[in-house]
C-alpha cells in the first residue's frame, strides 16, 4: 500500500504539474481565442471545433468572493470561494487561501497569486494537488 507513496496528480486536468512551477493550461479556440478549462466539443463563443493550449498567468485580481459558512459535512468551513481574473486573460473559480476568512481581510480587487497544496491522499498514497490563490502583498 505504501509502494506508490509520494506520487502526485493534479486535482483537475487543467492544472499542470511538471518539472517547473505548476500552472493552469486552458483550451484556446483557434478561431476566436475564447478560453475554456473544461473538455470541449466546440467553442461556446464561435462554434468552431479546433483548439490549442494556452498557459495562463499565475497572478491576477480578486473580482468576487463569498465566505462559505454552511457546507456539506465533509467540507471544512469557513472558507473563501473566489473569482479571479488572471493577468493576460482568462479567469478561474477556486478558494482564496492563506488569508483570514473574514470580510476585513478579503478585499475586492486585491492582487492575488497562485499557490498549490495537497488537498487529499488516496488509498495508494497518491496525493491530489489543488491550486488556490493567496493575497499577493507588495505586487504593483
Amino acid at each position, binding site marked *: 500500500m505504501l509502494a506508490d507513496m509520494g506520487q502526485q*496528480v*493534479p*486535482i*483537475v*486536468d*487543467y492544472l499542470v504539474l511538471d518539472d517547473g512551477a505548476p500552472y493552469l493550461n486552458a483550451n484556446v479556440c483557434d478561431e476566436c481565442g*475564447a478560453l*475554456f*478549462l*473544461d*473538455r470541449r466539443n466546440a467553442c*461556446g*463563443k464561435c462554434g468552431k471545433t479546433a483548439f490549442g493550449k494556452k498557459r495562463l498567468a499565475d497572478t491576477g485580481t*480578486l*473580482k*468576487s*468572493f*463569498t*465566505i*462559505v*459558512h*454552511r*457546507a*456539506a459535512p*465533509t*467540507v*471544512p*468551513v*469557513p*472558507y473563501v*470561494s*473566489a*473569482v479571479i*481574473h488572471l493577468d493576460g*486573460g482568462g*479567469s*478561474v*473559480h*477556486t*478558494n482564496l487561501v492563506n488569508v483570514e476568512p473574514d*470580510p476585513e481581510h478579503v478585499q*475586492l*480587487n486585491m492582487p492575488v497569486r497562485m499557490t498549490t497544496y495537497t*488537498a*487529499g491522499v*488516496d*488509498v*495508494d498514497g*497518491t496525493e*491530489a494537488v*489543488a*491550486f488556490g490563490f493567496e493575497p499577493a502583498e507588495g505586487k504593483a
Partner: protein
Amino acid sequence: MADNVWIIGAAMTKFGRHPDKDVLDLGSDVALEALADGGATIHDMNVMAVGCQFEPFTLGQKIQKQIGQTGIPVYNVTNACATGASAVRTVIMSIKAGEADMGLAIGVEQMGKPGFIPQMGRPRRDKFEPDGRFGEVMPIEGVLGTDFMAGVFAEAGMAYAAEHDGVGFDQFVKIAEKNHLHSSLNPLAQYRKVFSTEEIKASPMQAYPNTLLMCCPTGDGASALVIVSEKKLKTLDPDVRKRAVKISASVMTSDPWVEGGQVQPDVNTLTRNAADQAYEQSGVDPQDLDLVELHDCFATAELVHYDNLRLCEPGGAGAFIDSGGPMRDGKIPVNVSGGLISKGHPIGATGAANIYEVATHLRGEAGDRQIEGAKVGLTHVIGLGSACAVHILEKQAV
C-alpha cells in the same frame, strides 16, 4: 404581427408546507381555481403546459386525469427556477402561433423540507482517477470554490460590488429587511414576520454576505393562469373582459458567451437582454412601472437586477436601495409580495406566481398589499444555467 394575448384567470396557493397534499393536489386545485377565476372550464382549453422541476414526468397528463381528460396537447416543462415562466410562455407561444385560442399554464412544486445542503458533484472514491469534464480526481466543491447556490449568488452580488461604489453588506441586508416587511401584508406568503436590521445581520451566516434571512426557503406551492387570444377575449363575458390583464411582452433568453461566464455564472447579460427586448416589445419605459416582481432567490441577486432591469441609474443599485426606491411606497416597488426571500420559492411555481402577483395588483384585488392605481408591472425569473423570462403586464380596456 401575431394577436395579443391576455390573462383572464389567475390563482395561487399559499406558499409553504403542504404535508396534507401531494403535487397532484396542489396542481389540480390551483388549476380549477384559475379556471373558475376566468369564468372558464377545462373544456374551453386547447392547450396546457405544466412546469414542475422535480416531478415532471407526465405530471400535466396526471392533472388532466383529475380535472378533465379532453385530449388537448400537454407540455411538461422544466427550466430550473424559470420552469413556471417557461410553462406560461409555452401557452403564450401556442396561442401566438395560432394553434390555440385559450390555454392553461400551471407551475407547481412540492419540495417539502429537504436537507439544506445537497450533495454536490460526484462522491468521494478510494482511488484518484480523473473523471468528468475537468478530469477531477476528487470532489472539488469547497476546494475549487463553491457551486452551492447561496455562494454562487453571493459572488454575483460581490462582483457588482467590485465594480460599483456604495454596495456592501448593509445594502444586501436592507433588501432582505424590505422583502420580509412586504411579506407581512401577503396572506399567501410562506413567512410573514418582520425582522430588524440587527436580526438579519445576526442570523446564521450561510455564504457571506448572505445570512439565513437573506436566502429564500424551500417550500410547496402552485400557481396557474388562464391565457387567451385577444380575438377570443372579445367574445367573452363583459365581467371576464373587465378583469383581463394584457401580456404586453413575453421574452425568454439564455446566457450568451461572455468572458469568465464559465467560472462565474453570468446572471446579468441575459437579464439585460430579456428586459431590453421586453421594453421594446411593449413600448413600456422602465420608469413607467408601477411594480416589479424579480428573482430575489438571495438578497445579493435582487440588488444586481435593479440595474439589469434598468430600474436604477447604471451602477446605481446601491443608491437605489439606500434611497428606498424599491420599497412599496418608493419610486418602483419591488417584490411587494415578499419576494422569494419571504413569500417562498417552490421552484416550478415561482415563475407563474409572480405573474399572478402582478396581475392581481393590476386588477386592484391585492387587498392589504395593493399598490394603488397600478397599471403596468414587470415579472422576472432566472433559472441558473441560465434561463431568464421577463413578462410585462398592463391593465387596459379591450
